[in-house]
C-alpha cells in the first residue's frame, strides 16, 4: 500500500487552486481564440478580444481571471492501492482556505443557505466528489465554478420514450433562455441517464472532458447540439453573434427503465480547472 503524505496532498491542492484561478487552460484559451477568428459581428469580436486579453493580464499580473473565484469543487480518484496520511477532507479544506487568503482570492461561500448567510471568509467548505479506482495513485481535479453560471443549471426528467429531438430542443431552449446571464460563450456539460443526482454530477464532470465523446452517436449528438446552440444569436456575453457555445460534452450513465434524466451544467467562458496525479 502506497502512502501519500499530508504535505504532498496539501501542496498539490494549493498549486491547483492557484493555477485554476490565474491561468486559463491552453485548450480553453485556444477555443476563445478560434471563436475570435471566426466571429463576424464587430461587438462580438471585440468582446472575445477582451476575454483573451483578460487571460493574459490575469496570468502576467497575477489578478484572478474572475472576481467570482467560485465554489471549489474537487474530484478525487483514489486508487485502491493508495492511502492518505490524514483526513483528505480536512487537508483539502485547509489548503483551499490558506491559498484563497494568501493569493487574495474572493471568498464566496456562506455558512447556511437560508438562515445564516454569513461569509465563511475562507471559501470553504469545498465540495468533494470521490471515486474509488484501480491502481496506486491519487488523481485530483480542482474545478472553480462561478455562481452566475451555476444559477443557470437545469435538470429535466424526460420520459424514457422521449425522442432525441425533444431533448435537443430542451437543451437549446435552456441556453437561449439563460442568454447573457451565464457569461457565454459557454462550455456546456450534459449528464444523461443515471438518477437525478448522478446526471447533475455527470454534467459537471462532462464539461471538463477535453476531447469529444469516444462513441460516434454521442459525438454526433454533441455536434448537433453545438450547431443548434450557435444559431440562437445569443453570442459572446449575450451581445449577439454566432459564438454562444464553445464546446458540448456529454457524459452518459445506465438508468432505470422508467427514467431519462438530462442535466445541464452551463459553464461560463472562463472554464477554470486543473488536474494532477500523485
Amino acid at each position: 500500500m502506497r502512502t501519500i503524505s499530508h504535505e504532498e496532498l496539501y501542496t498539490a491542492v494549493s498549486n491547483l487552486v492557484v493555477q485554476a484561478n490565474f491561468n486559463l487552460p491552453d485548450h480553453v484559451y485556444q477555443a476563445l481564440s478560434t471563436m475570435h477568428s471566426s466571429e463576424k459581428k464587430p461587438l462580438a469580436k471585440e468582446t472575445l478580444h477582451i476575454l483573451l486579453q483578460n487571460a493574459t493580464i490575469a496570468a502576467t499580473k497575477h489578478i484572478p481571471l474572475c472576481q467570482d473565484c467560485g465554489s471549489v469543487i474537487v474530484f478525487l480518484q483514489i486508487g485502491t492501492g493508495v492511502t492518505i496520511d490524514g483526513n483528505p477532507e480536512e487537508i483539502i479544506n485547509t489548503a483551499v482556505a490558506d491559498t484563497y487568503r494568501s493569493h487574495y482570492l474572493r471568498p464566496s461561500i456562506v455558512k447556511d443557505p437560508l438562515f445564516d448567510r454569513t461569509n465563511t471568509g475562507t471559501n470553504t467548505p469545498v465540495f468533494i466528489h470521490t471515486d474509488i479506482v484501480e491502481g496506486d495513485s491519487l488523481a485530483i481535479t480542482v474545478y472553480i465554478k462561478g455562481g452566475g453560471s451555476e444559477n443557470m443549471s437545469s435538470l429535466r426528467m424526460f420520459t424514457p420514450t422521449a425522442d432525441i429531438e425533444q431533448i435537443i430542443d430542451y437543451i437549446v431552449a435552456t441556453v437561449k433562455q439563460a442568454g447573457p446571464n451565464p457569461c457565454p460563450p459557454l462550455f456546456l456539460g450534459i449528464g444523461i441517464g443515471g438518477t437525478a443526482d448522478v446526471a447533475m454530477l455527470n454534467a459537471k464532470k462532462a464539461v471538463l472532458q477535453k476531447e469529444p465523446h469516444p462513441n460516434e452517436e454521442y459525438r454526433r449528438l454533441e455536434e448537433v447540439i453545438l450547431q443548434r446552440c450557435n444559431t440562437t444569436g445569443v453570442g459572446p456575453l449575450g451581445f449577439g453573434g454566432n459564438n454562444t457555445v464553445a464546446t458540448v460534452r456529454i457524459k452518459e450513465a445506465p438508468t432505470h427503465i422508467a427514467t431519462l434524466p438530462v442535466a445541464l451544467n452551463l459553464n461560463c467562458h472562463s472554464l477554470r480547472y486543473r488536474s494532477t496525479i500523485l
Partner: protein
Amino acid sequence: MKTIDLHTPIPEHDLQQLKAGDFITISGTIYTARDKAHKKIAELVTQQKPLPIDFTNAVIYYAGPSPAPPGMPIGAIGPTTSYRMDAYTEAMLSLGVRMFIGKGFRSSEVKKLLVNYNAVYCSSFGGAAAYLNQCVVDAQIVAFEEFGPEAMYKLTVEKFPVIVINDMYGGDLYA
C-alpha cells in the same frame, strides 16, 4: 470599435444620447453595490435612516471585487448578474441613480422603470475581471465593510468599458 467617452457626473444630454448597443467608456466615480448592500439600503430607506452616499445622478456597479493584493487599489472586478437586484431597482431610481452596470437580463418591470425614470442599464464584460481591474485607479470602502466582498466601494475609474443594454427609450440590446 467606435466608443463614446463619458465622465461622471454624466450630463443629462450625454445620458439622453445613449442607445442600446453603444460601446461607451466611463471615467470618474462609480459605486459598487450587490445583493446585501441593496437589501440594506432598502431597509435604511424604509426606516428613514441616513444613507451612506448621495445617490443623486450616481452610477451603480453590481460587483463584488476580489480583495486588493499589495500595490493594487482593488482585485479582480467584473460585473455580477443583475436580475438579483431587480427587486431593489425602483428604490435606487427614486434615490436618484441614473445608470446601472451589471450583466444579464433585467425584468420587464425594470425595463419600464428605466424608461419612467430616464435611466440607463449597461453591461460590462462578465468574466473579464482582471482586464477591468486595469481601469480602476482608486477604491475606497464607503459602507458595509462587514459584508466583506459585498461592501460598497467608491471606485475611481478611467475609461471603464460598458455596453448599453437598455436605453431610456425602451431600446434593448438583448431583445
